[in-house]
């Protein structure tokens, strides 16, 4: 009967390994954040704020031109129109610029949204410094209200040489889950809707 107890021991050890690996799956979540912070690939809204006084001390690099493109979209569950009023502009690294986005609430009630920025190419993200941005806070729009929202930013002169075009994109989310569900955020998917959400996934992976 020694085999039986040996089998029980093996069973217990291996079950422990399985539980440990289940935990490891969850441990990947914080590990991933740490990894993203070290490599700077995740666009952290807080980390990229610069105060206006700091901006002055940076010298403008007149020898370089950078094209910055602006885009934005709303995620399902947020019944807003949302777009950049200027599609692109050219600037020198170190120059501070302001660009406006426009949002209008199409719903018949006030809705709170949060914009999440992302930058392409990803390695440019830590060089795009925002002094002011509507994405720093939640935005509340009353029923039918439209509003212009500003982003004040500059491109750090330390931007690697190979990059001459940067795309700044915003995804606007409904912050309230109940309200998001109400506007189709996670409703039962029907074929046309699936098509819509498929497109969003593609955009997401690109951003």
């Amino acid at each position, binding site marked *: 009967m020694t*085999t039986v107890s040996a089998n029980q021991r093996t069973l217990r050890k291996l079950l422990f390994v399985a539980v440990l*690996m289940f935990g490891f799956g969850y441990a990947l979540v914080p590990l991933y954040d740490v990894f*993203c912070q070290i490599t700077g690939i995740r666009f952290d809204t807080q980390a990229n704020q610069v105060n206006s006084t700091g901006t002055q001390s940076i010298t403008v690099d007149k020898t370089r031109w950078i094209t910055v493109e602006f885009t934005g979209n709303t995620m399902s569950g947020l019944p807003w129109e949302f777009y950049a009023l200027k599609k692109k502009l050219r600037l020198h690294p170190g120059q501070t610029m302001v660009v406006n986005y426009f949002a209008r609430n199409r719903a018949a009630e006030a809705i709170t949204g949060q914009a999440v920025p992302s930058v*392409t*190419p990803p390695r440019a993200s830590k060089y795009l410094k925002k002094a002011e941005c509507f994405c720093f806070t939640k935005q509340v729009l009353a029923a039918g209200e439209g509003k212009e929202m500003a982003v004040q930013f500059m491109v750090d002169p330390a931007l690697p040489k190979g990059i001459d075009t940067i795309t700044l994109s915003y995804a606007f989310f409904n912050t309230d889950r109940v309200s998001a569900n109400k506007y189709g955020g996670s409703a039962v998917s029907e*074929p046309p809707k699936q098509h819509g959400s*498929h497109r969003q996934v593609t955009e997401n992976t690109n951003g």
Partner: protein
Amino acid sequence: MSTDHHEDRPQGLTRWLFTTNHKDIGTLYLWFSFTMAVVGGIMSLVIRSELWEPGLQIVEPGFFNQMTTLHGLIMVFGFVMPAFVGLANWQLPMMIGAPDMALPRMNNWSFWLLPPAATLLVLSLFAPGGAPGVGWTLYAPLSTRAGMGMDFVILSIHMLGISSILGSINIIATILNMRAPGMILMKMPMFVWSWLITAFLLLAAIPVLAGAVTMLLTDRHFGTSFFDAAGGGDPVLFQHIFWFFGHPEVYILVLPAFGVFSQIIPTFARKPLFGYTSMVFATATIAFLSFIVWAHHMYTVGMPMGGELFFMYATMLIAVPTGVKVFNWVSTMWQGSMTFETPMLWAIGGVFTFTMGGITGLMLSVTPADFQYHDTYFVVAHFHYTIIGGSVLAIFAAVYYWLPKWTGHMFSEPLGKTHFWLTLIGFNLTFFPQHFLGLAGMPRRIPDYALQFTGFNEVSTVGSFITIVAQLIFFYLVFKCIRGGKKATDQVWEDAEGLEWAVPSPAPYHTFATPPQVK
């Protein structure tokens, strides 16, 4: 251990429900997996019929996506994995001289979790909104927003996962604790070795998948935001966790196939396996490397350059131990007295087509090239060459190799060979043109395509019908072999070596009640 209850086992349905016998459970696994193969195969015909010509003919785009999703999940979790577990159940105890699996009652449970899990998976088709059309990879945020069918799939994956974990624990315990005296680790047959390593892969990878789908579930219903950018999560995180499971998973599918090739080729080449020790270490190396290459599935998400280089080099490194294995098989055949009975045909065919899939894998591992191949039919061609060409051909090879031992009858060689050639030709017709389609830019998971892709798609559809229809031969052959045929000898194949050939054909209900002595 050995009590004599040969005669008092229950008969009929309860025999199968309550059985703890490794041979019964192996048989159940095999029947289950081939049933699921039929279901998944029919879904592949829906996909190929829709792709017969451009435009939408037969199904709605949403339903097409449901078919690709379920086809993938069913073939991976319902067919290939259970089929190899079934082979392990039948063969491992007989190959190491053990009376049964180490944990027989748990064995019963790991099998009987499968039918409800598979039912749940197929039932998702009838949920409001249908099955999820998110692809077998279940990428967030599409999967966090999909309909109720997604919850069916999540719970089904939980059950399939528990079944796999219990099954792999059982296999490890059997191999480590139940070997006959004298069978040291380095004397174990290669099929046993590759299953030992596969079981460890399962044990480490499946819980991570369980974690990933649990996060999906809580994101969907319990207010967490692991993958929801609005709540501070990140959809790309899902891809990392999924592929941390997903890449070991592809070796879970293919390592037992390597074990099968390593059993069959020496038998019919009449030479011992070339480079046994290097085979063992190559298998272990592949298993280790499989855990550090996951992000090569997601080169296009915007990783830093350093990450892309690391995953590219690590992935290319896998070609080395895999090459060792392929060269060892070829060297085993070299100057052997080869004969080409049905199992040998399947094994050689498998090595050949798997190597083709391996080479396209190497092409895909090159990061800059992958940006072109990503999400095209080139990828579809690649993984069907590895999974059908490697795993599925190996499953058939193994069934033909051991079927006479299970049933006590020889099967019809002409039918087996016809089955092989039709499958091989049909399979290559289906998937070879998909390489060209992918290189020309045809995206995967889309029910419609541009006109210039029509010709290759028609060839592919014809090939898929040949492949599926050819499987009818297999079922006919197996039924015929169970009911009768030429009596099989104990050794079955001339020069077959191993403990399983020392027991009578058909293998009695209980074997090795007293352990054999291995020299």
